[in-house]
């Protein structure tokens, strides 16, 4: 067992899949000699060569389109977006071409598009985005979003092995902040589609993912300490498809639910989750399903502004208290 960061765990997962399966290759901007803007692919070009670690022009649509073509032909491409914000330039290619290929024409398209996302890092409006809601609405895509080092590794492996296109979202605030003991030698694969109970409790459920999973856990800890509240925390891990069973299990257990995400509120994932809970567990609810999210604005740059716009641990604590008292 060794202590590895979220970033290193992702790197290991990628590396092991490249070693295991020579159909796997990487393409993106500056992924080669530079090793990617955050060094996720550092050392890869040396080990695997330029044919399998391809530095591309600044052309996100071409990166994703080329990955799709290669995937059709039996390859397992992993496309990096330098920051996930630039995936918007491949929006057409992903939603219209990639997502529908199997449905339309029986074309297998097993590719992974991955990239650093999220805020809390003073990145301003175009280096901090959360793009899950933009693709969540597209049948044919899968979306995963690890919160732990173990899942960073386990989900990149599962994504590469999946027979369908997967968007893998990695949170840059977690890159070097999260450390975990991971088994060496033993395989770590996190099944796509399964949420994880990150903390047990009977008073109230928090459903979250990504960076705010940690803020939710921090809030749960504080509520246990200060209020004697037993808060259950569910880490979704896969956003598309959602693990309805796990969601309903915790709701039926605690009867009160708070959904927390870093993304803006209107049209964010919490809406869909709330609707599903309401449909599938209405009779179990002892209070309204509530949401803690970012405010509905582009993410500003100044620390004071960013901190205000994004949800903080204290917000979760207060909202959970309010709901517990409902």
């Amino acid at each position: 067992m060794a202590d590895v960061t979220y970033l290193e765990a992702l790197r290991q997962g990628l590396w092991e899949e490249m070693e295991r399966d020579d159909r796997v290759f990487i393409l993106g901007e500056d992924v080669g000699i530079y090793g990617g803007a955050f060094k996720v692919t550092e050392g890869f070009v040396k080990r695997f060569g330029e044919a399998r670690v391809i530095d591309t022009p600044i052309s996100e649509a071409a990166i994703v389109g080329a990955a799709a073509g290669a995937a059709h032909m039996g390859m397992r491409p992993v496309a990096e977006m330098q920051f996930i914000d630039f995936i918007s330039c491949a929006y057409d290619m992903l939603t219209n071409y990639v997502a529908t290929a199997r449905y339309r024409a029986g074309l297998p398209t097993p590719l992974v598009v991955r990239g650093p996302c999220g805020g809390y890092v003073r990145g301003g409006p175009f280096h901090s985005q959360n793009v899950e809601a933009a693709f969540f609405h597209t049948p044919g895509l899968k979306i995963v979003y690890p919160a732990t080092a173990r899942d960073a590794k386990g989900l990149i492996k599962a994504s590469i092995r999946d027979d369908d296109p997967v968007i893998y979202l990695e949170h840059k605030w977690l890159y070097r902040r999260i450390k975990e003991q991971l088994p060496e030698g033993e395989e770590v694969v996190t099944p796509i589609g399964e949420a994880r109970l990150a903390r047990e409790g009977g008073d109230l459920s928090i459903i979250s993912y990504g960076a705010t999973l940690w803020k939710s856990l921090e809030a749960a800890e504080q509520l246990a300490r200060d209020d004697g509240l037993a808060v259950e925390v569910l880490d979704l891990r896969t956003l598309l498809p959602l693990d309805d069973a796990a969601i309903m299990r915790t709701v039926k257990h605690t009867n009160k639910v708070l959904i927390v995400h870093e993304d803006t509120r209107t049209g964010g994932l919490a809406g869909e989750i709330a609707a599903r809970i309401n449909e599938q567990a209405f009779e179990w609810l002892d209070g309204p399903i509530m949401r803690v999210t970012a405010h509905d604005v582009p993410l500003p740059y100044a620390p004071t502004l960013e901190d205000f716009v994004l949800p903080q641990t204290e917000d979760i604590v207060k909202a959970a208290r309010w709901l517990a008292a409902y």
Partner: protein
Amino acid sequence: MASRSAPTTQSPPIPAGLSRDQLLQVYRYLRLTRTLEERLTALYRQTKVVGGLFRSLGQEGESVGSAFALERGQHRDFLSPLTRNLGAMLVMGVEPVQILRQYMAKAGSPTQGREMNIHFGDLERGYLGQISHLGDMIPVMAGITLTFKMRGEPRVGLVYIGDGGMSTGAFHEGINFAAVQRLPLVVIGEYNHWAYSTPPARQFAVTRLADRVKGYGIPAITVDGNDVLAVYEATKDAVERARGGKGVHFIEVTTYRRKGHAEHDDQHYVPKEELERWARENDPIDRYVKRLVDSGWADDADLKDIDERVGVEIDESTDACEGEPLPAPDSSLTAVYARPGAAPRLWFRDL
């Protein structure tokens, strides 16, 4: 196809290494394309076609000539057509009945009624229909040919793009990426004078499509797209160069879209004399027939024989599928993903 009679000794030599059989095959594909489209037009008027009908009248030559230059068969060269490249799909081995089924959205169509016209593919036999979003197939074909290069397979990709489609960002990103990677890709740019109602002068500020690609560092030529053999030769040459590791090649084919954008379009924006001149003087099939006959490579009887057999084939294909059922409604839920096998049927359907 067995040849009925040997060419007369006076005939000029057949160009580009083609045999007389191949010349007649080319003729058959041209005729098949046109006859099939005429049948589709009839079905469209009978409202048996679902949605729109896109004709390639006057452009059959470049579709057939270019595709004919590929090595065809399982795991050989690979082609991605636009909607108007029906002829290319037929050359790749698609059966007319598949096209008829597609246009009529039959359960037995290649996409089981999910997609229209020639928007379908077969990875084994080497073709891949477009999606509607123009330009997107260029990056996809870059990925397909990237795979050929990575694996060291001696295979080539061929992709078509319109004088309009070249304005898209996806085209630029895809062809540039392919050029940088020196991928074995041949791009056919179709100068057919229109993008819906938009003429080239509103689409780009140079004269030729071959000029338009000068920034990509790839060889580019212009050929008379209604001269089937010229298109064949140019493509053959580009394909072999691409196969030999010489990277992306661009071929502009000049032609004319003689019908509207789709059947509903009355072409009121098209100068009538221009249209008539192209029909009268520059029909690719007429020109090919004349060349065949004048050169003594075939005679009227050969061609008439083919025409008849094509007619029978189209009749039989139509008869075979016209009465076929549409897909079962809830077949619409399958194969969004490999796993799970089907999307959930929504609650209100079971009340």
